[in-house]
């Protein structure tokens, strides 16, 4: 007996179904409005260059006395944390009583070509943290770093520990040389200087292409076969297109910051090995002595779980908690499981350390 047991009748039925979905999909696609994203009201509290810090407005006043600032990655837009009403980390944190702020980095252009990691971390992030603390009338705030923003938050906290009460990191790489880190493998021998000197700011499309090539068959083909199956469902199709919008609505990367991130983090692995210097400041993770919550995704293809797990033991904090989420790099924000599990876990952890 062979591996296939496909009835001809079923096969034609499958083909017919596919064709019907495509036909119906055309009607749905024509009826769709523009994709909207971001569902929570917010107020601007600080602005500098292209950066804006927002404070989100919940249905009721926050019960938490210490505000939480979300530091997102530079490589994507931060509205992933507030994509839509039923997929919003921000909304759920507000519902728990947290006071949530977020840094929106904007879209860097040629004027930002020479921004360094020192400018981002000891400049933009530091001033954003000060602005949030001032706005909330506190001396220390909670910092929630996501992905690359998590790595930045680690650096910031190590340099300015007196400004951070609690640190939360989500899908954050710490050890960039784990054997399952594909992006790291690809960049290890590249000439970072030649790369940045040649192309300057790194185009978003180039970044997106690299991410797609991490799983080319799934992300360039299989995903769109799956899309046909939901073509006749307006609500699901809207969700799909919203995700597509987020995936490809990426900012360019400021050249100098990218050069340093590639050289010191991906190639040198200095965040964990030591020797990382941002401007005048040495980054020593042992300076992170406040409580730390580290959340990572077990099926993360961008930041392998081991890359995050490495945080344990290299930071100075004795109050370290880690949570392994059953999902992927994106699912940790948008899956229904994430809505149920992640915000309450963060809130409970913070409340115990208020």
């Amino acid at each position, binding site marked *: 007996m062979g*591996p296939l047991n496909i009835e001809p009748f079923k096969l034609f039925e499958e*083909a017919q179904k596919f064709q019907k979905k495509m036909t119906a999909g055309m009607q749905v696609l024509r009826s769709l409005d523009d994709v909207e994203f971001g569902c929570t009201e917010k107020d601007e509290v600080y602005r500098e260059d292209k950066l804006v810090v927002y404070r989100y407005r919940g249905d009721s006043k926050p019960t938490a006395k210490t505000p939480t600032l979300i530091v997102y990655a530079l490589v994507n837009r931060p509205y992933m944390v507030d994509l839509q009403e039923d997929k919003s980390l921000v909304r759920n944190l507000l519902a728990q009583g947290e006071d949530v702020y977020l840094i929106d980095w904007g879209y860097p252009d040629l004027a930002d070509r020479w921004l360094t990691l020192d400018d981002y971390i000891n400049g933009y992030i530091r001033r954003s943290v000060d602005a949030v603390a001032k706005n909330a009338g506190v001396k220390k705030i909670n910092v929630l770093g996501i992905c690359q923003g998590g790595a930045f938050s680690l650096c910031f906290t190590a340099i300015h520990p007196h400004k951070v009460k609690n640190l939360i990191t989500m899908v954050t790489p710490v050890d960039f040389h784990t054997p399952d880190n594909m992006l790291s493998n690809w960049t290890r021998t590249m000439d970072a200087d030649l790369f940045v000197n040649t192309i300057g700011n*790194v185009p978003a499309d180039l970044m997106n*292409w690299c991410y797609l090539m991490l799983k*080319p068959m799934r992300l360039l083909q299989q995903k769109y*076969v799956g899309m046909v199956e939901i073509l006749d469902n307006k609500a699901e199709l809207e969700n799909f297109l919203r995700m597509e919008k987020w995936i490809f609505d990426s900012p360019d990367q400021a050249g100098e910051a990218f050069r340093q991130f590639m050289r010191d983090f991906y190639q040198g692995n200095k965040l964990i090995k030591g020797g990382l210097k941002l401007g005048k400041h040495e980054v020593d993770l042992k300076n992170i002595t406040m409580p730390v919550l580290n959340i990572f995704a077990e099926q993360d293809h961008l930041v392998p779980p081991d890359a995050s797990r490495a945080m344990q033991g290299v930071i100075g904090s004795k109050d370290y908690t880690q949570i392994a989420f059953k999902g992927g790099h994106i699912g940790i924000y948008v899956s229904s499981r994430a809505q149920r599990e992640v915000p309450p876990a963060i809130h409970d952890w913070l409340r115990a350390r208020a």
Partner: protein
Amino acid sequence: MSDPLDVGQWAKNWEAMARQAQATMSGNSAQPVWGNAAASPPSWFENMAQANSFSGGKQQSAAMEHLLAGAQGYLGMLQSLASGAMGQGASGFSNPFATAGFSGAFPPSAMSNPFGAAMRGFGNQGAVGFDQMMEQFSAAVGPMFDKAKGALHMPAFGHLREKQENLQKTAQVFIDYQEQSARYDRLMLKVGEKAFARFQLKLAEREEPGRQIDSARGLYDVWIDAAEEAYAEIALSEEFREVYGAVVDAQMRVRQQVQGEIEKFCNQLGMPTRSEVNSIGERLQALRREFREERESTGDHEGLQAEVAELRRELAALKSTRKETVKSAALLERAEPVKATKPAKSKKSAKLNKAAKSPKAVKASKAIKASKAKEAARVEVIAENKSTTKKTSRKKDSKVAPSHREKRRKSIASKSERKSVPITKSRAAKSKDAAGSGSFAASIARFARKSKTASVSGRSSGAKPIARKRGGSK
């Protein structure tokens, strides 16, 4: 042996190619900007697309074409399986690999190797036209590669030396890129082979009844799993790391070389270039950084004022605490027999207050308190002993027996000197004063004894009996 290189012709071809590249980059090219990565769709797919009347609007049609391009692997597989079913019937269809062999079981569109397009895609992302530029280069220079290779390392000289050297360098980076690109493509072919091998293994695992694949989609998903696993194995290897780095570096060198040519061209036309903008941008950012640093270090009045205000509050709190301590100490001392130490204490406290907040000062003040407390305790003990013998003898004692008093004070002073130097110094001085006053009192007593009249001391009821008693004891 190859013919000698016709440098003139080669340069002409190169210039033509450069013009075409410029046209492409400026958006005038009629060619599509996305290269030729997408394979032509299968006929079944074309028929299906036509049947769906997608020509309702250009945008929708483009969206659907993109969707179908993504799904072409699945569609090809579906088509192939359907063809097999029609031609062979259900029995033969169950194993399409049995007759055609694995590689021939599906059309190329169904199992196209997407990995080969990867680096072409990398080239096109964010730098439109790179792929076309390479094709044009191949067309222009390709036939002369062998000749060009031999001439690339020849020394340049004469008044066109710089131009010739630059041309040689340009040719060299293009050739390097093509070589590295070929290495990458070979590696991607290896991925394709491994993917098929893995697919077969996965199919073999599904031969058991109950685990068989019963839909085209199921089969497609198994193929995707196999392809991804094979790709991941290669993409995580050290060989891939080296090849990938080399091909990206080679591509960057080509871009850099072309950019240099364009900049030269722009300079001749008096146009600003990327390098010039970069220089300005770098200086501007350095200035901004310096300015901000300066402003933050010297001009952050708000922060400084807040800090000073906080320090002042702390100081005021410290002072009030100190005053209370001094008051309580003074009250304590009033109850003590030795009055002479009081002013010294308050003076010292004031000095200590002024001396301020350093931990050393706090330690010193604690030491002072401790020594004072000990001293007070000692004095109390002495006084108690005295009072057991004669309760009212204190003042008389100081008058009648100045030498004892002096000795005692000296002893106290020397004891406290051992404990704390600043205190003992002033205490010793005070003890001397006290001794002085003691001898004056003694002379008065002597005078009183001599006169033997107590009537003069009748004004003070306390002094009389003391003097009488003292005198009596004498």
